[in-house]
Structures are given as C-alpha cells and as structure tokens.
C-alpha cells in the first residue's frame, strides 16, 4: 500500500513542480475569462459549477483502525476474547473514488460517484492463531444533485441543497478464508451496504477574499432492507470547514466533523454473531468527532490536487469495535 502511495505522491510533486507558462489571454472573451479557475478551494461534497462545466475527479483514501474500544474506552484483545472466539486486531481500507459532475445551469449541478474498495482485516483467535481476511471490488454508487437556492447579490454567501440517491452496486456476499473455512465475511468487510439510500444535506458557504467558511450537515438513511435481511443504521454528519488561500494557487483547510450512526437493524443469517464482534450487529454505530487538515493546489489547465489528513479526537462507539485511527486522502480534479 505504501509503495503505491509514495509513487502517487512523487508523481503529484513532479506535476506541481512544473511552472505555469505565461499566457496571452487577451484573445479570450469576457465570458471565457470568467470561467478560468484562478483560485483554489471548494468544499468537496456540496459545490456547484458554472453552466455546462464538467468536472472529473479521482480520490484515494487510506484509513487504518488498530485498537479495540467500547464506548469511549480502549479495551484489550483479551477482553474481547473473553466474549468472542475471535478478535479483530487491525483493519486497513483503501478507497478509490471516481467522481463526475456536470452543471446543467449556474444553480444546478449533477454528480455521479462510484468507488473501488480494498479492505483487509487481521484477527487473532483464543488459540492465538492469526489470520487475515480481505475483500476488494466495486462499492456503492451515488447520483447527486446540488442545488444553489440562495446567493447574495455579491456572491459572497450562498446556500446549497444536496440530495443523493445511493445505489447498492457493492457486493454484500463477500466471502473469505478463516479457520472455520471459506465463509461469509462480516458486515464491515462487505463492499456495499445492499440497500438503496437517500442522503440529504444543506451547506452554507461564506467566501471572503482570502478564506472560505463552510458549514454543512448531511442525513443518510436506507430506504429498504437488503437481500441479506438487514439494513445499516441511519447516519448524520455535521462539518465545519475553514479554508484559507495561502497564495492564489494554494490553500490550506481545516475541518471539524461530527458523525453519528445508528446500529444495524436485522441481521445476516449467514453470520454467527457469537464468533467475532464484527459479525454482531450490536457492535456497529456510534459517534465520533474528527479533525481534518489539508492542502489544495491549483495547477495549470484547471487541474487541482489536494491532500488531507484525518484524525479522530473523540469516539463513543456501540459495543466492541476497532477504533478509527487515522486516514489520509489524496485527490485530483480537472474541470472542463
């Protein structure tokens, strides 16, 4: 994983080290000049584009979970093994997300998103036997509509409504090899969630000369119970973002993110909830508070790259779960 990450970072560095060439833009019309991206920085989920703009983006995120917890406290592997035959010890997840946006008008932007998941979970049994399960493939997809419904006359304040319809394109039938044989993997190792879901949100953004402040919230809920007879819990997240333009082509950003998720309702009959905590629906959901710091870089030809680091500062989880540790996100965007 780190080999790929370092290669990606090296390529990005080479790209940003290529200086912008002086251009004569006097041949462009007033409209064309107004369409050139000259400042970095927008808020990922809830931004809109100018009419007929298209944006394509690739996001890569790496996250790790490596200690067990119950509510706000850390617990040991032995504590877990006193209740279950197997305990997870570490999970890593790599997600590659493809994102495409099209602006139907200056107020309405459509988006399509899908992603590729690559997950791995290490375990230990009561007999001290260690094993790892893995799953990889296409995850769930989403069709999104961002609608700018209020903007101040000087363009410095705006409100955007966000509506997403999530399509269960990810598998919920992933299996893996364990000491018990080739069996159904727990909920956390499935590529998708199996249910159609609706995600609604609202975003307020204040743009000033050198900074942007954005506050938004999202609520997400499954519409149906999936084919394996369960559905993931409703979730709610609220985000506060501060983005500062360090230069006209480079911005730094900081986010505080609060997330709450309910536990899974129903259960997958292919799983034995007494063997491992991840197979028990009581061990899903919770609340957490994360901080995220990042940097974005505007490149020639309407390209933008970003990198950010996410760290949970508080977690209150339901039941026994691996706690979120850290996450790094890399992204590349191009607007046409």
């Amino acid at each position, binding site marked *: 994983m*780190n080999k790929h*990450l*370092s290669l990606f*970072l090296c390529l*990005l*560095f080479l790209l*940003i*080290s290529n*200086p*912008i060439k*002086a*251009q*004569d*833009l*006097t*041949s*462009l*019309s*007033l*409209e064309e*000049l*107004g*369409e*050139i*991206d*000259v*400042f*970095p*920085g*927008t808020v990922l989920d809830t*931004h809109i584009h*100018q009419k007929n703009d298209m944006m394509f983006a690739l996001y890569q995120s*790496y996250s*790790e979970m490596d200690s067990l917890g119950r509510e706000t406290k850390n617990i040991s592997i032995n504590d877990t093994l006193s209740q279950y035959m197997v305990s997870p010890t570490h999970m890593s997840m790599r997600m590659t997300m493809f994102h495409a946006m099209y602006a139907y008008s200056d107020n309405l932007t459509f988006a399509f998103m899908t992603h590729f998941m690559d997950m791995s979970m290490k375990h230990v049994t009561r007999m001290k036997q260690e094993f790892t399960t893995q799953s990889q493939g296409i995850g769930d997809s989403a069709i999104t509509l961002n609608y700018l419904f209020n903007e101040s*006359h*000087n*363009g410095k304040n705006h409100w955007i409504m966000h509506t997403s319809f999530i399509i269960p394109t990810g598998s919920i039938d992933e299996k893996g090899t364990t000491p018990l044989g080739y069996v159904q993997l727990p909920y956390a190792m499935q590529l998708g969630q199996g249910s159609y879901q609706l995600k609604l949100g609202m975003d307020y953004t204040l*743009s000033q*000369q050198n900074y942007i402040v954005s506050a938004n919230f999202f609520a997400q809920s499954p519409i149906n119970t999936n084919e394996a007879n369960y559905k993931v819990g409703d979730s709610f997240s609220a985000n506060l973002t501060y983005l500062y333009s*360090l*230069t*006209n*082509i*480079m911005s730094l950003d900081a986010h505080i993110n609060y997330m709450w998720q309910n536990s899974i309702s129903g259960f997958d009959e292919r799983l034995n909830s007494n063997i491992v905590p991840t197979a028990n629906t009581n061990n899903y959901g919770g609340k957490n508070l994360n901080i995220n710091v990042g*940097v974005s*870089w*505007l490149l*020639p030809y309407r390209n933008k790259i970003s*990198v950010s*680091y996410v760290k949970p500062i508080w977690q209150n989880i339901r039941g026994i779960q691996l706690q979120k540790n*850290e996450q*790094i996100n890399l992204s590349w965007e191009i607007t046409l």
Partner: protein
Amino acid sequence: MRIKIFFLLFINSLLFSSTLYANNEQAYQVKAAYLYQFFKYTNWSNKNEANTIGVFAEKDIQKYFTLIEESYFLKNKITIYSINNIEDALKCCDMIYFGPNTELKLQQLTQTKLSGVVIVADDSLTNGHLAMIQLHKKGTKLKFIVNSYNTLSQNIELSSRLLRVAIKINTDV
C-alpha cells in the same frame, strides 16, 4: 505511522515548491486580459487618440499588465503606465487599475473631480465599491462587478455586451 510520515513529507514538499510560484501568474494574466476587455467595451465621450491604462501596483505585479502592450491579438495599441502617486493618475490615463493594498490611493482619487476615467479595483481591495468596476472573486473564478452609480458620475458608457456579463450593483440610479 508511516502514512503520517508520507503526509508530512508531502506537505513539506508542497510548501517548499510554493516558492516556485511567488505570485499567481494566471490570476494576474486574467486581470490584465479583463482590463483589455473593459477597454474594448467602453465608450468615452471625450477621449484623445492614445489608448492608455495606468496601473497602481507593486512592480512585480505591473509586469503582468505590460504584457497587454505586446499582445498579438490587440487591434489598437494600448500603452501601460506605471503610476506611483495621485498626481500622475490625474493626468495620465483612460483607465486606472488599483492593485492590492491601494485602498488609500483609491479613496484619494475618488475624492478628486476626475472624470472620463474608468476606475477598476482589484478584488482584494476592501473599498472596491468606490470604483466603477471591481474585480470579484467568486468561488475559484474571477468575475467583475459594475457599480452603475459610479459609471454615470464619470460620464462614461459601458457597452451592453460588457454589462450583460457583469454583476451589477446600484442599478436603480
């Protein structure tokens, strides 16, 4: 832990490489091109033959505007003057651009009885509403605001082509 190290190295390389771009060339190229377009779509009632734009800004910013003089695409020659004080501004130009950190100069100029000059303010100026046209940061793009009241008081007519693209304020005068 290893991804933390990669992250820190990457941030460090970004900060280091930022010295390669001390200024945003493209933003100023866009601003210079806007000035040319504003010039093209302005009708002066009393104007001599020379086409002149004055630039109130630091030297490293002025160089982007002198590119207008060399533009291959220009039909009429435009001369760019570097302005350092109000006295120069009062007698030099058909259009004056106030760059970053020139709020005081802009205020002083608008208190004079200067007329027939298009005053353009940079997007960074906090008193840009005193100008006829203010460049305006909107998201990642650069737009412009036309203050109709200031336009009328200068006896200058901006073409409908320009007004159609502009964000307009004080239109009920």
